[in-house]
């Protein structure tokens, strides 16, 4: 299988703190890949580098073999990459439907056409709205379409985030702790949804997660980082028995 998203020797420093110290990873197309590590290991920083929210001090990011270091944050969606956030980042004052539609922003007509309600733009708009409704149905959000995002309970907000990412028609989706703060039922539901996305829509998934049971059951491949550096990588079963990983996690707990 071809490499979908790859990074090499990513280094990020904040003042004196080194958040990432030469991390590399390679996400294969069509796989669900997990990125795990103890708190403060630099997972979110790496995520931000991959989605161009953070400038790396050194290292390269490749999307389907093409370097993307020069692209702006908002261009990444055009290249088929969508992401969610660890702390929910919804448009609080807008409805669920609008939140999902924003995800499809790069598919909309050019600004001038949209503003003046040109027929083509309106047609595109309707098409996108339909798709947004479909996505909402898939995520069991259809009865919430007209509610303001800020009024939704936490679990639903998490799903709206996912829906927004899906509306962009991504080929690869980066999920930052998708089930953090969810109860067991919600976790299971989201886990199923992610698996379906991967299976039915063929979307490559890279996720950061602390819920080990979820990670182990859903991921095809795992990367473990600690102190901003690669610690281990492999199939979930291998990682479960990897000594370094156990030490890293236990060491932190003790």
């Amino acid at each position, binding site marked *: 299988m071809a490499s979908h998203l790859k990074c090499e020797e990513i280094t990020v420093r904040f003042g004196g703190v080194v958040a990432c110290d030469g991390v590399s990873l390679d996400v294969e197309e069509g796989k669900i890949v997990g990125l795990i590590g103890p708190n403060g290991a630099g997972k*979110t920083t790496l*995520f*931000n580098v991959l989605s161009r*929210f953070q400038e790396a001090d050194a290292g390269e990011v490749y999307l389907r073999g093409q370097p993307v270091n020069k692209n702006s944050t908002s261009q990444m969606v055009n290249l088929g990459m969508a992401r969610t*956030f*660890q702390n929910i980042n919804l448009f609080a004052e807008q409805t669920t439907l609008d939140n999902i539609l924003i995800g499809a922003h790069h598919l909309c007509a050019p600004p001038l056409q949209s503003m003046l309600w040109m027929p083509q733009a309106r047609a595109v708009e309707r098409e996108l709205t339909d798709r947004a409704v479909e996505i909402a149905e898939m995520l069991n959000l259809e009865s919430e379409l007209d509610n303001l995002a800020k009024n939704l309970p936490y679990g639903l907000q998490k799903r709206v985030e996912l829906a927004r990412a899906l509306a962009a028609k991504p080929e690869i989706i980066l999920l930052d702790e998708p089930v953090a703060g969810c109860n067991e039922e919600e976790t299971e539901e989201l886990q199923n949804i992610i698996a379906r996305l991967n299976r039915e829509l063929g979307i490559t998934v890279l996720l950061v997660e602390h819920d080990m049971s979820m990670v182990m059951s859903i991921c095809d491949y795992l990367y473990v980082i600690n102190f901003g550096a690669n610690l281990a990588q492999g199939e979930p079963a291998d990682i479960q028995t990897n000594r370094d990983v156990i030490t890293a996690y236990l060491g932190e707990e003790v």
Partner: protein
Amino acid sequence: MLGQQILSGLATGSVYALTAIAVVVVFRNTRTINLAQGDFGMIAAFLGILFIKEFDLNYYVMLPLVVLCSMALGVLVERIVMRPIADSDWLTLFTATLGVYYILHGAAGWIWGRDTKAFPVTFDAEPVDIFGALISQGHLINMGWAAAIGIVLFFFFKYTKQGIAMRAVTDDPETALLMGIPVRFIVLLTWGMAGFLAAFAGVLLAPIVYVSPEMMDEVLIKGYVAAVFGGLYSIPGAIIGALMIGVAENLAGGYLGSHFKTATAFVMIVVLLTFRPQGLFGIQKRREI
């Protein structure tokens, strides 16, 4: 000539500094850009005239009285106007202080009339010669006061319980609340301090620009510019910003022509913000994702 312009600029800047400090203190504790800051000072100046002329008080008796009244005014404004809307967004708070500005402006015009009045106390003895540059005693006294207040504030924030609590509120109001700091009281104190600084600004400026409802408009805007110049969160930044603006303004007035004097501060701020959006001493926070 150069020395003269710089010295006059520093004198003007020290008056801006008092306002700029107040803008910073209020902003960082309450997110409010206080447009009424200047008018607190204007009211203080009118009260100064009242105390001296009507009640025949000595300058040094008048000063603490005016400061007290001005602090009371600040506290009153917080209690009546700002507290009910304390949770609103930035723009609402900003507009509310505009409302206070209108009220104070109207009240001053209504009570004391719109005539410009002379401030009964002036320091118009011989100007002092400093390395060949002349400076009036009034300006020199202002600079002294401003420096003294700066030092008092430094110690206040560094060593007193209230000062430390105020800094804590600045850094993180929620944590401060959890740690048992009475945030509401601190906010009240903040506005009291705004009144305190305004009283000095008003009384010190009154002999120079005379007293009228509009006397502080220019100073307020310059003080605001100076505060932003220094980064809006930093008191030393505000002071340095104010002095820089005072000097730059005077130099522009002296060498480019006085039409450019007013615009100088704004050209400076626009250029600065273009290249350093967080101000001179602001901290560029890394984006939290």
